[in-house]
Every structure is written in C-alpha cells, then in structure tokens.
C-alpha cells in the first residue's frame, strides 16, 4: 500500500482528538470513588504496622467497645486465602502473626462514622515483638541476613551472557568502572486510593475502586473471599492517575470483606499519608557497571550487576529487574555482555511498577558510563554515541535483531543542533 493510501484510512492517528471523558473532567462531573455516597453506608479504616519487622499479637476488644463501631476485621476473618500479590502471593490481606514493613495492614475497622473508626483504631492493642530487619539489599543477599520471607531474600536472578567479556576487556583501551545508585520514588498520583463495596440482591460482591487491573482485582478478591470469580464484580470509575501505583491490591479485599460481613455498603478513602505507605514505590537500584571501548570509541564489552530493592513484597520485581537487565546496555551495540540482575526482599516499603518498569533507572548508569568513556578518550559525548548506537539491523545484548524503525541517530542530531555537544571538538577530537 502506498503511503497516501494508508493516511486516508487513519481517523485518529495524527489528529487532535478530544478525550472521551474530557467533558466530564473539565466540568467536575467525573465520578471518582470518593465521590460516591450510598444510603446506609459505613466507613472503613485500616490499622497499619508502625514497625518494619515484628511478630504481632492483636487485641481488638477495646476497639470493639467504641460507639459506632460495627465490625473489626482481622486475619481470622478472611473467608478464603489470606494472601494476594500480582506474581507471588506474598502479601497477607491482613497480617496474622508477623509484619514485614511499616504500613502492613493489620486490621480493618468498619464504623458508622470515620471518627468512630479512627477512635477504635487508637484503642486496638497491637503487641509488637520486634525482629531484626534488613534495610540494605546488598546486606539482604548475604548469608545470615534476616529473612523477610521463608524462602530467602533473593526473589529473582536474571542473567545475560553474550560473547566473552573477560577476553574483550583485555582488548579495551579505556574502561569505565562505576557504581550507581538510584532512590525510591513515589507515584503521588493526585487522587488518593478510595473505594466503596456492597453486596447486591443476587449476592454478588461489587467493589468500586480506581484500579489499573480490574480483572486481576476480581481474581484476587474472589480468592481471598473464597468464592468464584463470577460472584465478584469490580467497577473502575474515574481513576485519578496511577503510573503503576494502582497495580497491586490496596483496599479492594478489605472493602469486599467488610461489605460481606456487615451487609451494608462500606466506603474507604485513604489520606495522602496513608496512600504513601499503602502502595508500591519505584525500585531503588544499585548498579555496578564496567564498560570498555577501543581507542576509536567503539564499545567492546560491558559487565553489570544490578540489585533492585523490592522491599517487603515482590509485586512486579521480576519484570522490573528483568527489564533493567535487558536495558542496562543502553541503546548501544556491545559484542560482549555479562549482566546479573537481582531482585531482593528487605523490610523497606515494597517496590513495584512505576513508569518505565525498570527501564527508567538504568540510563542513569549506562549514559554516565558513555560520558566517562568519552572523557577518557577525549571525545565529545555525541560522537561516541553515534559510533555505537543501535541502527536498523543491530543485534541487542539479548540477541534481538532490530528490524523496524530505529531513528535514534536522527533524534540525537536534532538534540545536537540545540545543545552543540561537538562544539570545540572537531570530528569528535579536541581541536
């Protein structure tokens, strides 16, 4: 098909289209879960751990005496499996005997008013027997480190082996060897988690919550409730931003349990502070990189070790650390590559999906490696990139041949026009 013919068929691509939900949003009529009020509804509040690693004993009796409290749910009230998690079922719906991070949910209080629920929360007695925790992922990998989960702290190890790095480093004229660290990042989507659940006349449990994964939530709610998935309906109203932070369960199961236990609609809205502790973070990573090039600036070898801190729960750690491993070579042809990428449990806040899924952290390492090499070669930073970048037909570290659009050269040239990287250096060499 000729280019023009294809163009004629496109009704959306290349055009400015008004969002389907734009009108409801500019008028303030879009309905987020906190905007739903139902007759006879109750309010839910989550009691969370304030210790990062401890055995717990929970006594709710004083909380139950607070006027207006209808029900306090703890681990023993979970009707089905007391677990959830997108890859590993390593979260408990409500922690039974042990907490693994600050913010682990321990009890869900259901009351006539938010004030009553809060008062009861203060009255619940949690006895903590603190355990040694581990907060550095490198420490967590060592023998004898406190175990966050029974099977050990290393959740995942991803490897790339291409060519022979040892031999290749011997051929290199310059080598950059550096350790990089990135920090945890919070999504801070503007609408804090909120939801409302109720049981309809047919006994169907309905959970209305802003989520990125209604079908996953349905499965997880059904498993925890011990009922078939067709007895659970998830309704996803307007979502006030997510960026990966709404891929794990937060309040969905608590609400379903509360609605079932009380027979009334139950609503829960997190404060900003609770939102911060309730959902995942971007994985902090430690990246040890060794990159070598010949005197012309051609990359010959890269060796990298990446350790991602997934905190107390795995969430999407496997996908994130695999992606980090795949992308640590950057958009460059490197004939010899050795990568080891690990996801590790600690007692820190748990990490999961956040914009880029592991591909966001690694450029901090691979691009600084390029700059260091350029400096050692007295070459400008653009030239070294142009010499090594992926183009049509390039082979990546994982053996993929790039067969379609790879317009990185054009992109860098446009940037060069504005930034003048090569100024003062002719043909990549200093004048």
């Amino acid at each position, binding site marked *: 098909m000729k280019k023009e013919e294809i163009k004629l068929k496109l009704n959306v691509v290349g055009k400015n289209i*008004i*969002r389907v939900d734009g009108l409801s949003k*500019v008028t*303030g009529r879009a*309905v987020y879960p906190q905007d739903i009020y139902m007759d006879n509804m109750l309010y839910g509040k989550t009691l969370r751990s304030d210790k990062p690693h401890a055995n717990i004993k929970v006594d709710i009796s004083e909380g139950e005496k607070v006027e207006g409290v209808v029900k306090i749910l703890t681990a023993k009230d979970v009707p089905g499996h007391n677990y959830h998690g997108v890859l590993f079922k390593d979260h408990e719906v409500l922690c039974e005997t042990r907490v693994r991070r600050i913010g682990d949910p321990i009890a869900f209080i259901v009351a006539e008013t938010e004030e009553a629920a809060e008062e009861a929360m203060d009255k619940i007695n949690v006895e903590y027997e603190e355990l040694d925790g581990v907060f550095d992922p490198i420490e967590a990998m060592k023998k004898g480190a406190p175990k966050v989960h029974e099977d050990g702290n290393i959740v995942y190890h991803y490897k790339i082996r291409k060519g022979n790095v040892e031999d290749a480093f011997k051929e290199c004229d310059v080598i950059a060897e550096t350790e990089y660290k990135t920090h945890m990042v919070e999504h801070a*989507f*503007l*609408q804090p988690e909120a939801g409302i659940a109720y049981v309809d006349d047919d006994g169907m449990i309905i959970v209305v919550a802003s989520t990125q994964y209604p079908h996953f939530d349905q499965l997880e709610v059904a498993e925890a409730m011990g009922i078939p998935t067709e007895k659970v309906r998830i309704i996803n109203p307007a979502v006030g931003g997510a960026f990966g932070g709404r891929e794990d369960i937060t309040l969905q199961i608590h609400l379903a349990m509360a609605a079932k236990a009380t027979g009334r609609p139950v609503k829960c809205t997190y*404060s*900003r502070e609770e939102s911060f502790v309730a959902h995942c973070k971007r994985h902090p990573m430690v990246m040890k990189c060794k990159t070598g090039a010949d005197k012309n600036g051609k990359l010959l070898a890269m060796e990298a070790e990446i350790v991602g801190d997934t905190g107390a729960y795995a969430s999407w750690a496997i996908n994130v650390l695999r992606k980090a491993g795949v992308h640590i070579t950057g958009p460059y042809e490197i004939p010899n590559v050795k990568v080891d990428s690990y996801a590790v449990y600690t007692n820190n806040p748990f990490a999961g999906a956040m914009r880029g899924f592991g591909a966001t952290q690694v450029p901090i390492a691979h691009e600084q490696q390029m700059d260091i090499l350029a400096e050692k070669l007295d070459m400008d930073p653009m030239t070294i990139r142009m010499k090594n970048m992926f183009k049509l037909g390039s082979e990546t570290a994982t053996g993929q041949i790039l067969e379609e659009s790879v317009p990185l050269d054009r992109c860098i040239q446009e940037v060069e026009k504005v930034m003048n990287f090569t100024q003062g250096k002719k043909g990549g060499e200093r004048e």
Partner: protein
Amino acid sequence: MKEINLTVNGKKHRIKIDENMRLIDLLREKLNLLGTKEGCGEGECGACSIIMDGEVVTSCLVMAFQAESADIITIEGLEKEDGTLHPIQQAFLDEGATQCGFCTPGMILSAKALLDKNPRPTRVEIKEGISGNLCRCTGYNKIVDAIEKAAILLEKGGN
C-alpha cells in the same frame, strides 16, 4: 452546631455546620458539590481550590465557619445554565489539558482567578498563577497552553 450564610455559585444558602467542619466538607457533603477534590488535605496540592471573594483558597485549609457571608465559586458554577462551557473549560478540553482530571477543577479555578485580574498574562505569569496546583499527569505545558488560549477566547468575548 452553628449556622452560617453564604453564597455559592450565585445561590444563597443558610447551612447548619459543625464547628470543626472544613469548607471542603461543607461543599462536598452539605451542598453535594463533588467537583471540589481532596488530594492531600494539607494545602499542598491545590485540588480543592475554589474562589472565595475573588481569591483562590484551598478549601481543605479553610474552616466552614470562616465562609460566613462569603461569595464562593466552585467548578460547578462555571458552565452556563444551557450547558455552554466557560471559555477556560473549553480551552482545557480543546488543548488536551486534562488527563486523569483530578487536578482539573482546581486548576481551572486558579486560571479563572488569574484571568479575572490579569486578562492577558504572560506564560511566566500563568505558571505563577497555577503554582499552587499540582498536576501529576500532564507535565503542565498543555495547561499553560489552554490558559493562554482561554485568555484570547475571553478577550473575544466568550466562546
């Protein structure tokens, strides 16, 4: 309990309130004006912004009783009765300046307060005008574009 008088979107109200009630709760729970959003409850995000006596305020930090005799505009007060959008709303829609939409009502009201005082602001002035409103989705550029466009629409006298 306390009773206050106030005007919201041109309508006069006499309302019973609790002393510890915030203005955002009055708007959302007593008047059912749910377009005013709560993103932080601490005056940081601007999602709860409304116009009170011509000034933008974060309604999570104003007590309801402080609104005695006040003249308040919320997002619901911007459309005409026949449903015609206010030029700022139209510009936000046309420029793609709303994504998740949670910041949008507050953002539009901050824009209105700005344009009411300064009908042709520079881009820098627009950025200052919305500096109290966080948006986590758009990256702000389209919002600034929309407010620039709204200024032109308003100057032409309407939609």
